[in-house]
């Protein structure tokens, strides 16, 4: 008798979980189908080395997308991340070439990212500029700084610490991926279990109600932008380590990748709903897609086209979900 009840309870619990995670599960299904198609289409796809390649690509995008998720959960937007990443990368390379300690450089990179986050938050909360416009403006400015730092030239990096980050591994898994996983898991933990995380969801759900309940909405948004800026700082370290060079053009043309990933993962433009897990699956899906096209040696211009299409599809999915919620 008791076991029957327990099974029933378990089934109910599972139903609840499936409903709760519906958007994550559906995007995961999409990812699996895509992988299945690619493994048939290309003999190279299912190889370990290929997965490591995908992982390395995700390490940069996935770190920033996690930071972006926090901002977007509060109904804001950050399009400046990739340019900020490039600018900070240039700065770190200059510092390294001038003999600054590598560990100190990493801290400076993260702190600079956080400062840019503050700037974004200032524009959004104090100057009341629409987040999308404000961060497009900082995106342009950061890109200009990246070019101005060397007049457009790239800089080589020959530092041992950075070499280890870029090419070393720990327990057989590249350090890049460790960084990605640790950052994602800790952010997911914070969002789920701390009062800060609860307030992030509350602010996204209804900023006015939060303000009336004594929550400092602007302060929350500031912290959100700091997190997304800092994630760009971390990503810059990963990015320059991967190629042993800092490029002022790094990430140009990829500015919308993270946004697409976040939408694919189940967040809505208004905020208040979604999880880091979803974003992570979204990033992976985009990475696999790009990887597959390279394996099938499709023209790079088609890849740009497809990215645009994925972005459209991702935001459309959000619209469909919202329309269904309204019924």
């Amino acid at each position, binding site marked *: 008798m008791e076991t029957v009840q327990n099974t029933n309870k378990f089934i109910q619990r599972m139903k609840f979980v499936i409903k709760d995670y519906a958007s994550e599960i559906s995007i995961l299904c999409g990812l699996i189908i895509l992988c299945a198609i690619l493994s048939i289409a290309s003999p190279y796809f299912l190889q370990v080395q290929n997965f490591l390649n995908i992982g390395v690509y995700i390490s940069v995008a996935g770190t920033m997308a996690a930071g972006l998720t926090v901002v977007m959960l509060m109904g804001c937007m950050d399009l400046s991340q990739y340019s900020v990443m490039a600018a900070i990368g240039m700065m770190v390379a200059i510092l390294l070439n001038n003999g600054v300690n590598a560990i100190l450089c990493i801290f400076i990179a993260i702190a600079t990212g956080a400062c840019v986050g503050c700037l974004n938050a200032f524009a959004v909360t104090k100057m009341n500029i629409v987040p999308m416009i404000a961060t497009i403006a900082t995106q342009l400015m950061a890109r200009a700084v990246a070019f101005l730092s060397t007049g457009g030239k790239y800089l080589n990096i020959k530092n041992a610490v950075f070499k280890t980050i870029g090419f070393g591994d720990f327990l057989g898994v590249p350090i890049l991926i460790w960084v990605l996983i640790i950052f994602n898991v800790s952010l997911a933990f914070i969002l789920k279990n701390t009062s800060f995380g609860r307030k992030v969801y509350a602010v996204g759900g209804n900023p006015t109600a939060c303000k009336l309940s*004594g929550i400092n909405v602007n302060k929350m948004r500031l912290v959100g932008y700091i997190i997304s800026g800092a994630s760009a700082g971390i990503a810059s370290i990963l990015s320059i380590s991967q190629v042993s060079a800092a490029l002022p053009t790094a990430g140009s043309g990829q500015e919308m990748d993270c946004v697409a990933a976040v939408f694919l993962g189940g967040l809505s433009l208004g905020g208040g709903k979604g999880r880091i897990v979803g974003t992570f699956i979204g990033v992976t899906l985009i990475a696999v897609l790009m990887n597959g096209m390279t394996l099938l040696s499709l023209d790079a211009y088609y890849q740009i086209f497809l990215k645009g299409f994925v972005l459209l599809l991702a935001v459309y999915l959000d619209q469909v979900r919202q329309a269904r919620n309204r019924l």
Partner: protein
Amino acid sequence: MFYIAVFLFLHERVESLSEFALKMEGIYKEFPGVVAVNMVDLEVRHGEVLALIGENGAGKSTMIKILSGAYSCDKGTIYVDGKEMGRYTPKQAIDSGISVIYQELNYLNYMSVAENIFIGNIPLKKKSRLVDYAELKRRSIEVQKMVGLEHIDPMTTMGQLSVSEKQLVEIGRAYARNVKILVMDEPTSALNDRECEKLFQLIDMLKKQGKAIIYISHKLDEVVRVSDRIQVMRDGRSVGVKNANDITKNEMVNMMVGRTITEMYPISKREIGEPLLEVRGMTNHFLKDVSFTLHKGEILGLFGLMGAGCDEIVRTLFGLMPLSSGEIFVDGKKVAIKSSKDAIKNGMAYVPSERKTEGLILMQSVKANIVLLQIDKLMKNFTVDKNRETELALEWSKKLNVKAPGIDTITESLSGGNQQKVVLAKWMLNKPKILILNEPTKGIDVGAKVEIYKLIEDFCKQGLGVIMVSSEMAEVMFTSDRVHVVYNGEIRAEFTKEEVTQEKILQRAMGE
């Protein structure tokens, strides 16, 4: 050929002369958690004014929105001029002669009076298809004469007009669209006596032209003055239609409320304690020298017409609007309130008038909403103490009798009354001293209203002071221990429960 044409013409005339301009039969509309309109019939004849009265949440607005095409009804049929309408859009409603003038006027602030009247139907020059301004002005003047606005230049921008003039422009717009059925929702809420009288004269004239008019109002005097028949709604049902000559105001009230005053407002005498909150000379860009005192266990009612300043008083008190001069004392100590956070720290709680947009996080659960203010205090070992969270939410949803399948239910799916109880639970959990209620029973069904009054009384018995803003006269009169009447950003009068009458309040609220 000619005869056929004459026949058709006459036939159409006969049809349009069917006795009722509008007939709504068996209208039924359900929203998640509440039946808004339950099998209601409504009929208006040509050249007749039907008053539709009832308390807030009785279903009047839902009926009107169904008529205007904004909602479609779940069951029921609508006939205009004897013709069945089927499902229709707001545009189709306008085309078939139905016009609604809402309490919140709908106009284009930066466009001219003439353009506002003829919006969607602006005359164009034959050849060039450009706007024919000469014709537009000529036609606008014609309509303006109709509604008594001939003294205004048709090219004046709408924003420069007074509220009553704007309203007349809206009536003009309906007229220009050849309205057959005109609905007015609380048209006098922002008008003074003289402007009201002008409006009534206009209504009489429209009536003579054979227009059917549905008139919605809370003010029973003007209902008697203006209407031929009166239909009363309560709890989503129609509870009777009477000729305006055959019904007294008392009968109307009894039909609207459906229960005696002590059943409706179960608030008994309490012990009023020492002063809890004192406001002295509160002034800002909207308020002028507002002073009042709230005692422990007391319910202080604030009443004012739309835009009078009640909302601003409580919002300033709660730190949501800046205070340019004046002092606030809590428990005899002077406090500085610059934000809602300061207000909360000083023991205040604020239940806003817009439950859905300001009170709740609709996409979140009952639990998340109830513990929102406590979330920082619930942190233990770097994580939220989930057991304690559940405990608190269960305890308080039970205390306030929130009817929901569980505390994990999303608040969006609850009825208005239960949503309001969740908002109250959130605040009461924070143990406030001063509870500020802004329209606490707006859009809530009568049963839940009574429950909420009971809760408010309980809170008062525990020593809380309650400030209640309400636009419902009966609510203010029968729940408050004292009533302050607000007009133009000032407190104009103060009445005790014994002194207060509807006439006194209204007079002062109109600024007389």
